[in-house]
Each structure stands twice: as structure tokens, then as C-alpha cells.
């Protein structure tokens, strides 16, 4: 009885409730996009993009532009550009992406050091902060989740075709380039709205781990697309609760839970399932 009460204790706090809702939604959202990130071998891009968005966030904070407007514009532009560069498979493209996004990240840190209010805000964006989650953040995550869900459902077949077989999809008249831009925009916006909950440094993990875990469990694309957001949401739910009781950072705890789920699945799954993950590019 007391244990049950103890487990429910954090829910007495409004900030925890908000953080809980935001994190669970963020987990599901990253789970959906993670499927494309993992299957297209884009985890490196997700990583770079979150760093680029951080630069935009810092710049807009310093110039007192609204976070969503400033970082959003910056994020979408860099997302589309990174997608372009990566698509053309130029030698050294990965290095170029790495340099530009890391520079954006470093610039953001420098800006906050010089003009920012405190170290606290840097920490909040790097590692996320449950305390800082507002209803505006939740509304933003919800809006993006609904939009991404609707787009992925509505254009499911085209997305699948363009991801699995871009060459033949092009021949068949699919607008593969438009679909890729769409993916990069969704990815940028997702990073933007989830950044304040999960934190810049940990977003790319949430984009990769649930999807990779789902990949081990199933061999079907549609099932992977259902499982991955489910795993993402559950990991966030569990991670949030654990972080309260262990008094650890929410973002870090969520990732540790996700990593534990991945490891458990890896150990329990057969050799074949492990090979499926081994075959993913750039994991």
C-alpha cells in the first residue's frame, strides 16, 4: 500500500504530470521517425541535426526571438541542406555535415556563455528538463505528433516505396526527392519540439534505440512502424518515473531504460534477430 502510494507520489506534482505527458508523446514521435532514420541509415544525420538545432535555439534565445520560430527556421534549413548533401553521396559529405553541425553547436554554447542568462539554460537544452516543460511545449509536441502521424499514415506506401527502393520508385513516378525533403522537415521539427524534454545530446538515441529494438522483434515494415513508437513511449514512461525515484536526469534515465530494453531484447532474441540489427547501416 505504502509502496503503491510512493510510486504514485510524483504524480502529485503538476510539473511531473506535464513532463510525463511530454516525454511519452516525444517517445512515440521519435519512435515513428526512428523507423525511417534507422532503415535509411540516417542516425548520423539525426545526431548532426540535433546539434545544428541547438545552435539555432541558442541564437534565438540571445536575440530574444521565439524559440520555435528561431530554432525552427534554422532547423528546417539545416535539415533540408543536410539531406541534400547526404543524398548526393559526395566524398567527404559526412565530414562536411559533421563540421557544420558541430560548429553550429559550439556557436550556440559560445553565444549562451557570452550573452545567456545562466548555465542552467544550457543544461536544460543539452539534457532536457522536466521542470521546464510548459503546456506550450506539450501543445507543440502534440501538434507535431498528430501532423507526423497523419502524414506517415496518408503517404505510407509512398514513404515505404521511397525508403526501400528509391530508384524504382522514381521510375514509377513517385516524387522521391519531395518525400526525402518531407522526412528531413519532419525530423527537424521533431528534434525542435522534443529538445526541451529529452535534450539535444540524447535525442539521437531516442531516434535510434526504439526503432532498432523493433527491428529485432519483427520482419515486417508495418509492424515495425507500430512497435517502434510503442517501445519509445513505454521507455519514456518508465524512464520518467525512475528518474523521479532515483533523482537522476529525466533524459539520461529514459535513454538508459531504452538501452536496457534493447539489450534485453538482444539477449532474448535469437541469433537471426541479432543479425537483423547487425545489418542496419551506420548504427
Amino acid at each position, binding site marked *: 500500500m505504502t509502496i503503491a502510494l510512493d510510486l504514485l507520489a510524483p504524480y502529485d506534482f503538476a510539473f511531473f504530470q506535464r513532463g510525463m505527458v511530454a516525454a511519452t508523446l516525444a517517445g512515440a514521435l521519435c519512435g515513428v521517425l526512428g523507423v525511417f532514420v534507422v532503415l535509411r541509415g540516417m542516425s548520423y544525420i539525426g545526431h548532426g541535426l540535433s546539434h545544428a538545432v541547438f545552435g539555432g535555439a541558442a541564437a534565438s534565445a540571445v536575440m530574444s526571438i521565439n524559440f520555435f520560430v528561431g530554432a525552427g527556421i534554422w532547423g528546417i534549413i539545416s535539415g533540408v541542406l543536410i539531406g541534400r548533401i547526404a543524398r548526393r553521396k559526395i566524398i567527404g559529405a559526412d565530414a562536411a555535415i559533421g563540421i557544420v553541425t558541430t560548429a553550429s553547436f559550439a556557436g550556440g554554447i559560445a553565444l549562451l556563455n557570452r550573452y545567456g542568462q545562466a548555465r542552467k539554460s544550457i543544461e536544460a537544452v543539452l539534457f532536457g528538463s522536466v521542470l521546464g516543460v510548459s503546456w506550450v511545449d506539450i501543445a507543440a509536441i502534440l501538434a507535431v505528433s498528430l501532423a507526423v502521424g497523419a502524414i506517415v499514415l496518408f503517404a505510407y506506401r509512398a514513404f515505404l516505396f521511397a525508403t526501400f527502393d528509391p*530508384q524504382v520508385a522514381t521510375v514509377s513516378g513517385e516524387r522521391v526527392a519531395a518525400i526525402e525533403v518531407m522526412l528531413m522537415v519532419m525530423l527537424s521539427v521533431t528534434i525542435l519540439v522534443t529538445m526541451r524534454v529529452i535534450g539535444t545530446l540524447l535525442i539521437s538515441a531516442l531516434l535510434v534505440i526504439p526503432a532498432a529494438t523493433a527491428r529485432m522483434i519483427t520482419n515486417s515494415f508495418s509492424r515495425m512502424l507500430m512497435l517502434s513508437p510503442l517501445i519509445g513511449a513505454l521507455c519514456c514512461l518508465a524512464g520518467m518515473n525512475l528518474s523521479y525515484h532515483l533523482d537522476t536526469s529525466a533524459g539520461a534515465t529514459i535513454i538508459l531504460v531504452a538501452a536496457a530494453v534493447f539489450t534485453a531484447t538482444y539477449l532474448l532474441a535469437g541469433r537471426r534477430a541479432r543479425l537483423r540489427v547487425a545489418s542496419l547501416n551506420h548504427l
Partner: protein
Amino acid sequence: MGVTINSEPLIRCDALGVAYGAGFVLENVTLHIRRGEFVGIVGPSGSGKTSLLRAITGSLAAARGSVEVTRGTRIGYVPQVESVDWNFPITVGEVLAMTRTRRHWPRTTRSERAEMKEVLEGLGLHGLEGRHIRELSGGQQQRVFVARAMFGKPDILILDEPTSGVDVRTRHEILHLLRDLHSKGSTILLTTHDLNGLASHLPRLVCLNREVIADGPPRETLIPEVLERTYGAPLHVLEHGGMPIVLDHDYTSSEVLRDTERQMRSERESRQ
């Protein structure tokens, strides 16, 4: 077998030139393909076969001349097996359904499932809808992609090297399947470097090496003069049961074969 070859070409390449950057890989290619035809493009690796297909499908622009595909022509493209990501989480049913992008919902409709079943049955893939593509035999794997192309009800089926990287049995299976589809009315264009296993069984061959060296039935195109210009090395041709058999370089030193070939050539000339 009741196949009508319509006089209006579906695809016409006229004096087509294709280049990557400054270097031309195809020059002055004129090739017309009509409805109901079954055409094989042969040539050594690097001769521009894939580039020609890419020009026809519109993924590569013509640098000179023109490529015209009759308006509204649906192309069913079957990629090389080597270019498929076999580790992608996807089932046979999902491979077929993804081409129907007009429908904006993941789930297949009842009529789509019925159609899918018909296509799969026609290709001997009955009951494999739920299988992962990796869990199929080599021949089944190739056929899944033929099935995907057929599911789009194409006007022309285009296959790039359908028998490369497959074993002898699968090669037979594929040849058999394509002949069957052709006899049922499909228009087929393929590339191959497999002269004896595939090309010599087709009604029309286009020998390609930067340009069209010859165009016609195997009896006219699989002859030493054409093959030497296509492959840049002397190749010997035997005849077996009315069908040309090309001997590759390993045999060219054999005096016996050379004599046999000479004998055959004089026979052919005396027949003409």
C-alpha cells in the same frame, strides 16, 4: 501464340546519346520497341546497357537525340537482385502493395488482396504474402520483384540483368517465366550478358557497345562477326538444335572447335 505486335512503338530512341559529364557512354542509338515484343540487350559489362535502361526510364537525360515513351505507358521495372536491400524489414505482400501509392492508407483493400493473390499465383508464389523477402529461394526472390512490377499492370516490363547472380536452375526458372509472360501478351525489355542461358532464347537481340552493333533475331546477331565487334574479342559460335551457342574465351584455343565452327559457317553460307 496470338501475340499481336502493334506497329506503333511504345519506346523509341532516335540517335540517342547518353553521357555522364563529358564522356559519352552511348552514341547514336536508335531502337524502337513495339507492344508485344520481347527484346534483349546484350553486351559486355560497361557497354552501356544499364545506362540505356536509365535513359528509357527517364532517370538519365538524353544528351543527344531523343527518347520517347508513348504517353501513359506504365513501366514495370525489375531491379538487379544485387541492388535490393535484403535486410529491409519487408514481407512479400508489402513489396507488392507499396507500388499502389494512389491509395492513401497502409492496409490493403479486399480487391487489392484478390489481385495480389492472382499475381502471386501466376508466378508460383502462392501463399508467400507474409514471408520476409530474405526467407525465399533465389528464384522466388527474383519473381517477387517481377510480381511487384506486374502488380502495377505495366505496359512494358523492364528487367536489368535478371539472371545475374543466380544459379543455373533459377536462370531456367526466370527464362521460363518471362517466356510465359510474353506469350500471354506482356511486352518485355531486358539486359543480359548471359548469351547462352538467356539471350539465345529471345526473339530479338540488340547487341550494344556504345552503339548498336546489330539488331535482330539470335540467328542474325549471335554470329562471330557481330560478337567480335560487341565484345572486342573473337568468340566462336556453334549451333545446337537450330540454336546458336557462343563459346567463351576458354575454348577459343581448341583447334577442334575452331574447325567445327568453320564447317558450320560454310554450311550456313551454302544454305543462304
